[in-house]
């Protein structure tokens, strides 16, 4: 029957031993293990979450990049178009300006030619007048030399001058 009667001495020793073991393990044993394992579990969870976030970010980055390229391309074509437009405008302007300039130069040339022509005509006229005077002198002298109607002639010429 001693098997089912707890022995007092063993009871005391067991309480003491188990109490000490419990105290020591509860203070320096298990919490350390549990906390460390918990910390590692937390860290692993954190790492997984961060990896997921990074992946997400990377995916966003790729789409962002594609968007940027698209935008750049648009910008490029816009700039090219603008440049073409500006070029066309400049050429047009240059053409107009050149035309203006040319017409101005032509006008000037025309004016100058007209002036030259005028002065040339004046010279010719002067020359012709001188020539006709000298011809008239020669004719007159010949008539006078012939002596026919000398006086009448002089008279008529004076009359003509008076009139």
């Amino acid at each position, binding site marked *: 029957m*001693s*098997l*089912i*009667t*707890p*022995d*007092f*001495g*063993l*009871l*005391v*020793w*067991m*309480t003491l*031993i*188990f109490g*000490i*073991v*419990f105290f*020591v*393990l*509860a203070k*320096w*044993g*298990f*919490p*350390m*293990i*549990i906390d*460390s*394992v918990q*910390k*590692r579990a937390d*860290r692993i969870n954190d790492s997984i979450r961060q990896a997921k976030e990074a992946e997400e970010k990377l995916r966003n980055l790729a789409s962002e990049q594609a968007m940027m390229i698209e935008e750049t391309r648009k910008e490029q074509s816009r700039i090219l178009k603008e440049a073409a437009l500006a070029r066309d405008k400049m050429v047009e302007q240059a053409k107009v300006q050149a035309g203006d300039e040319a017409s101005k130069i032509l006008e000037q040339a025309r004016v100058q030619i007209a002036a030259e022509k005028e002065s040339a005509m004046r010279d010719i006229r002067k020359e012709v007048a001188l020539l006709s005077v000298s011809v008239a002198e020669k004719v007159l002298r010949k008539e006078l030399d012939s002596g026919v109607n000398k006086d009448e002639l002089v008279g008529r010429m004076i009359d003509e001058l008076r009139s």
Partner: protein
Amino acid sequence: MLPFQAVAAGASDTDVDLDMDEYLYGHVRDSYEWHITTINGKPVSIPLPVIVISRNGNGTHVFSSRHLEEGEYQGFSIASSGKYENKIVEKGPGGSEIRPWDFSITKNVLGLLINSALLLFIVLGTANWYRRHDATEEAPKGGVGIMEMMVTMVEDDIIKDCVGEDYRRYSPYLLTAFFFIFINNLMGIVPFFPGGANITGNIAVTLVLALFTFFTVNLFGNKHYWKEILWPDVPTWLKVPVPLMPAIEIIGMFTKPFSLMVRLFANILAGHFMILGVVAVVFLTAKMGAAVNGGLSAVAVVLGVFMDCLELLVAFIQAYVFTMLSAVFIGLSRQKAKTH
């Protein structure tokens, strides 16, 4: 337990009839010396210190149990029969045998000390690994890895599930209980010296364990727990004038740890008895001739291996069950009031 020891002890007994009672109980009960083997009819055992405080004014005595082999020593002797069989007794007034206060380091106490030292070494060694390493950077391997796996298993599967919200407060106790029972169970299966003491199959040991659970449950029980005991949610006539339900609940308070105590004790003790019984077949058939003895011995060895494997399983299961039920009882005492 101890098939080797039994074989050694039995070898010398082949010329005499095997005293089955003495053989069985001798191996599972507590004793003042640690019997290791018997060589040529001479027992080889470790004498352990006896510490007794006399109850009839004889004072405190500390001496080796070796002195008790011859009979009486300093007024103390081991009773050979009667109420205190195999315990140290002294002569009381009127010549009757009375029991002194007996705080001897018995086989079980020494076994407890050895196993506890082993447990402390293992668990503190494991904890030390975490102190020396950054657990967030690396995982332990080998023994520390096994310990981590077991601690995590008990923590996650038993404690977290059964205790509920504030399980963190109770996990040191429940983990200690689990590993304490487990290591003592395992050491009980080891058949030679540092093992082989029937510790968790001793009622005093399981009683203390059950008491720890009892106090943990009842000292930290919340208001709802006490209300459920003293004024449970049942029809009023079950509570007044005869407090039938409260009485049942209060009895339940004690039957829970009582069942814990008996379950562990009976399982481990029965396991030891089974193995001892199987091994005993070898010696009981010794006189039946070589053929019968040889054949049955072979059967006994196969059965013994099977039983040892079974006991390994039981060692784990009983530690698991004790811890789980303790956790469930604690969980019940921490339950919040439900809206019915």
